């Protein structure tokens, strides 16, 4: 069958208050760039009656450094703008540049990226296919086809910005009709493919706040085609070191292997106070990759993604261990 958008009403508020009021309607949905939402609507995974566009809200635009030296990124900033911005940490710009394709980056927003729905090759399929396979847990059925004995959904968190934002200790400002709050990006996500974030439907992500950061950071993304694909795996690492090259603080985050970005807490704790020698990196890699259990629900099988996890963790740690932190996508 064709992939046409189902009919919907589009409203384009110009203020946050107006938008917050509009999305308190449960049949409404926020749309940023629509690069995640529209394909899902075409596949009839969701059919909102009203779309509330954030495109005309000035409060969501722009990137600035605030009085506390934080980098404040509006949720409406496009990934192309982010990738080009001299104001954001280089690791953020390069992660943004490795998302999807140029056309998509011109439209896709930061807010949409952080709220990106979890993905799975049993759900992100055309309607006919889902009917033929039997609707899965996330699709209104009662079985997760990835792990049929499991009681929850294993769809993958595929946002490339989230692991980086977590590694940098970022937080989000959320606004709802009845007030606003700030939440650590780390706490924004939860490891459940259906309820993958803790935001209530009436909350709008307004900005991403990144504290001033002077350490070394990297994000290594693995995907089949460097031109367009979602991550098979993403490893973000941000660390500070003392004069003796000992680690004074680190956040190590593995993306696209679970329904939320995974902090490698055990590895982080192990690394604090240590110099990143080969042995130390090896042990940290073991600690960080052991708990990672990718499923067979995206490109390439779970076995390969399991194999790749230590490879990319090691490479990320090696990169921040050296002075030369060119943040890059792993290209062949």
């Amino acid at each position, binding site marked *: *069958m*064709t*992939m*046409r958008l189902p*009919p919907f009403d589009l409203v384009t508020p110009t203020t946050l208050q107006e938008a917050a009021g509009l999305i308190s309607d449960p049949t409404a949905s926020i749309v940023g760039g629509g690069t995640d939402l529209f394909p899902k609507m075409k596949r009839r995974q969701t059919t909102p009656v009203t779309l509330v566009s954030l495109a005309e809200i000035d409060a969501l635009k722009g990137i600035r450094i605030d009085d506390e030296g934080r980098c404040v990124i509006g949720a409406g900033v496009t990934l192309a703008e982010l990738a080009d911005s001299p104001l954001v940490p280089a690791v953020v710009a390069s992660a943004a540049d490795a998302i999807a*394709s140029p056309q998509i980056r011109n439209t896709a927003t930061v807010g949409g990226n952080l709220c990106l729905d979890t993905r799975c*090759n049993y759900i992100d*399929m*055309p309607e*006919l*296919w889902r*009917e*033929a*396979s039997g609707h899965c847990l996330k699709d209104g059925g009662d079985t997760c086809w990835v792990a049929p004995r499991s009681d929850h959904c294993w769809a993958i968190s595929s946002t490339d910005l989230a692991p980086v934002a977590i590694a940098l200790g970022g937080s989000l400002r959320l606004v709802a009709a009845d007030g606003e709050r700030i939440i650590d990006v780390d706490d924004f996500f939860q490891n459940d493919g259906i309820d993958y974030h803790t935001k209530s439907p009436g909350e709008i992500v307004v900005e991403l706040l990144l504290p001033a950061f002077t350490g070394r950071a990297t994000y290594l993304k*693995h995907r*089949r*085609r*460097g*031109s*367009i*694909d*979602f991550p098979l795996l993403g490893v973000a690492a941000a660390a500070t070191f003392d004069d003796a090259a000992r680690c004074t603080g680190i956040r190590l985050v593995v993306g696209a292997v679970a329904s939320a970005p995974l902090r490698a807490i055990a590895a982080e704790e192990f690394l604090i106070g240590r110099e990143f020698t080969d042995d130390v990196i090896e042990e940290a890699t073991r600690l960080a990759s052991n708990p990672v259990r990718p499923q067979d629900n995206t*490109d*390439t*099988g779970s*076995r*390969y993604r399991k*194999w*790749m996890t230590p*490879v990319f963790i090691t490479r990320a740690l090696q990169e921040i261990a050296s002075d030369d932190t060119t943040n890059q996508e*792993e*290209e*062949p």
Partner: protein
Amino acid sequence: MSAGNHTVVGRRLPRVDALQQTTGQTQFADDLNPPGALVGRQLRSTHAHAAITSIDTVEAAALPGVKAVITGADLPITYGILPVSQDEHALALHRVRHVGEPVAAVAAIDAETAERALALIHVKYEPLTEVVTLDQALDPDRPLIHGEGDGQNVHRTAALEFGDVAEGFAAAGHVREDVYFFGGNTHAALETHAAVASCSPEGKVTLWSATQVPHYVHRALAKVLDIPAGRIRVIATPNGGGFGGKTDPFSHELVAAKLAMITGRPVKFNLSREDVFYAHRGRHPVLMWVKTGFESDGRITAMHFKSFLDGGAFGSYGTASLYYTGALQTSTYRIPNYCFEGMRVFTNKPACGPKRGHGTPQARFAIESQLDKAAADLGIDPVAIRVRNAVEPFSTTVNHLRITSCALNECIDAVVEQSGFHQKHGQLPEGRGVGLALGCYMSGAGLPIYFNKMPQSEVQLKVDRGGGVTVYSGATDIGQGSTSMLATVVAECLGLEPAELTMITADTDLTPVDLGSYSSRVTFMAGNAALEAATKVRTRLVEAVAAKLEAAVEDLEVANGRVGVLGDPESGVSWTEAVVLATAATGPLVESGSYTAPKLAGPYKGAGVGISPAYSYSACVVELEVDADTGMVDVDRVWIAHDIGKALNPLLCEGQVEGGVYMGLGEVLFEEQAFRDGLHRGPSLLDYKIPTSLETPTVHTTLIESDDPEGPYGAKEVGQGPLLPVIPAVANAIHDALGVHIDEVPITPDKIVAAMRDAARGGSGRVGPKGVPDFDFGELIRVEPPEGFVAP
């Protein structure tokens, strides 16, 4: 390449339709919106294998805006592209055989109504056991996909021996047996299939369709609609890519016509990308076993090749595909004794068919990979073993293929030298490698798809009194540039410019038959037919002008818009005057030409597949880098040389070569039409990974001109052959880079890492199939080599 004595041939001209296409004026099938057109939609099966117990269309038909609803019962006559495989229904009747098979269809006033109507059609299925893999197809306890009861789902077998392979193996100093698997893949043409049908009040049906084969669609429509062919007109719209994917008659074409007949209004179908994955007809998955005997200097003494094709739900071109897996081994290398055994099974998946290279890339991958292994065993380099066995011009193969022009050695020399292969092979740092492979392809299948003695291509030429030339040909431009090719051939012959001609193509009412754009036949066959028609016109012009000038015909030339005395451009008359003189002298200036391939088939069943009036040759070197830890392959550069006979338009020829390289790279590194049980693993272009421009390396193309004695101006094919060597060249380069063998296509990163891990643990470092089923191919047909055949 010099243009030689030619004025048009050999020039790098843009396509005659380039401006139309680049300014968006070309009308593809989906651009056609006749007034009052209805939107057609197909309801597709959600079961891989099931009996249809009932279909209730009452509610759908009652929906306001729905003009007609039809099911399999409305089009009960079977069809199929090959006369031996009439096993398809336009809409499934009684049984569905794969997920996505069309079951019912509606015509409605708009897309929303049509889609709502589909949801109101109630189909009851009784699921049957699925048959999805080769092993399942051979399981006698599984149900038959075609027919009742249980049994092996074998569609076709072939077993042929030429010469004496036992003797050949006995004479060999070294014998290798290897097993390979080539995963299936699909065409992924940019344009999805689309068709518009209308029916006049008098009952004449017209179908505009993105098809490569209007003539075969014409025949299928007459059969299934059960009306005389004379009341049907098929117009092939310019195809936004075909690659073999639009070479069968398709359900939506037949259904569009039927719905137009019922409603009296035009009906349009435009398949979605998902639908195209279900329509498929792409590359067969093939499991292969190949045993080859070598003398110590690398000379091949015998080859025994077995192929197992997973055909999907229908016959389609499968019988031909099966024979093609075994047909062109001998036209690439001199094999004195050759045995081919093959079989094709039915499975509950979309039907496979022809894709660029039709049945031969799979075998090419196996044989070229094995040659590198044999060369290593024997301590010879990959170039030497190929040169030693390369087929020679004007020779006959053991399976009776007639080889004419052949510049295989020149192709090898070109790429080996340009790439610095000898300095690189085995000598680059770990992770970097080069690979070489060869290929050979037909310039048109020697026989038509259905038996007949009529020409395979006809062209008509009409010159009006103002001098305008109109060329009428059934040839279908699928993006390969066949219309430009015809214009080039005619313009060269008549001393005109291609852009001056009016081209009328691919319309069964207006143009004479060309069998279609498949098997790389159009340049050779339609080109020769056009040349014959143009030569007749030229002769009449020259005779008329000679009479006026009182000169000898031999002394006249037709060039630069004039007909005059050779070497004296000022002499004679203008083109238009010449046309007036000829028309006055001998009547309407209308001529026709045709092409029929010479009789080439050897004296055995199956000899019709593989014969061709000429073969193209290619050689390819790939240089790449592999990340040993991640298995990610970065193809750095590709050098490819292609024996094209004569490059009628080098610009367009290079485009075809580059397209073939690109497609081959996609097949070897990314693409697989893969299934989980009966379900496609990802019927979208996000999940089915084709390379983008960023994944495409620099390609160095060399066109080698062997000047074929029978090709139009010496030309041979270029549309398919250049794909063939690319796939094994990559496989061989990966081995050169890392020392592991991935005997399975596509070569994805996970397979490379698995092989590296295996090698690190002391294993063989090979990933690939373990063996082939123990299968009885039936009685072996023994064929004597052709008379005078001398073993090399």
